């Protein structure tokens, strides 16, 4: 009897949902005519179902909705933000590198810099002349340098 009660009790939810075979249905209905406990159990299942239907179709209150949606939004931001963070950093790095390279590219290029002419636009750094004598001078404010060669005869320097 106890075993039959346990078996039937297991079938009650499915009976209520009309999911039993005809044979099981006849067996459950037969048992319900004699078992008060199972009748009560069936009633409680019916009551629970009614409650679920009622609350399951209820619209959430505005405040509750805001709380829930706030949580959902935070979750989305965390997930998507984490996905976007790496590309965004890469993009910023790439932009920085490109700007750096453009600055390098268009900065006036300088070869090994020669010191600027100190006394003018032309500077004679070294002169050697043999067997002639040599005279070097700048003129026109340093814009012209002159190297003048002259003959040396008998110990006398004859500038031309």
């Amino acid at each position, binding site marked *: 009897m106890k075993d039959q009660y346990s078996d039937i009790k297991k079938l009650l939810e499915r009976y209520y949902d009309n999911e039993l075979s005809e044979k099981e249905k006849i067996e459950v209905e037969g048992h319900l005519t004699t078992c008060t406990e199972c009748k009560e159990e069936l009633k409680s299942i019916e009551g629970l179902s009614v409650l679920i239907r009622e609350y399951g179709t209820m619209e959430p209150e505005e405040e509750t909705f805001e709380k829930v949606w706030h949580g959902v939004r935070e979750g989305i931001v965390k997930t998507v933000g984490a996905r976007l963070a790496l590309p965004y950093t890469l993009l910023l790095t790439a932009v920085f590198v490109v700007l750096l390279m453009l600055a390098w590219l268009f900065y006036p290029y300088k*070869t090994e810099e020669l010191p600027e002419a100190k006394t003018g636009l*032309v500077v004679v750094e070294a002169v050697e*002349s043999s067997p002639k004598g040599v005279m070097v001078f700048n003129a026109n404010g340093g814009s012209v340098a002159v190297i003048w060669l002259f003959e040396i005869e008998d110990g006398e320097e004859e500038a031309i």
Partner: protein
Amino acid sequence: MTIRLIPLLSLVLLVMAIRGGREVSAQGRISIKVEAIYASNTGGGTDPKLSRLQGQLSSLFNYSTYKLMDVRRLSLKIDEEGVVPLPGNRSLEIVPKQSGGGVVQISVAIKEAGGYILTTDFRVVNRGTILVGGPKDREGVLIIAITVEM
């Protein structure tokens, strides 16, 4: 990640290639004009072809005649030697040694039959002129004007 870096690396290589190209062009050729001038007191004034140098010649030297005998234009790379024949069986050897910041360092040598009569190094800015004079030529002297154009 590797795939994402490919465009960036390509860009780096492109920029380096362009930059390299600029470096090559910056070390490009240097134009040098060599003018051989005959100066004397034989009379005849100044050659009209020397109008650019006329002021300098007349203010520096006391010759009455200046005649342009030859003009040679050289386009030389750094350390490349150019040779210009000069009147009187002479020759001028010129070598740009270094350039940068609008200044060129140049070595010049003048050679006669008996050997070198002059070797000199000088620095000159763009369009600067150096005059080398004194070697005798007929009744006058030879003046060589070397002008650098970058």
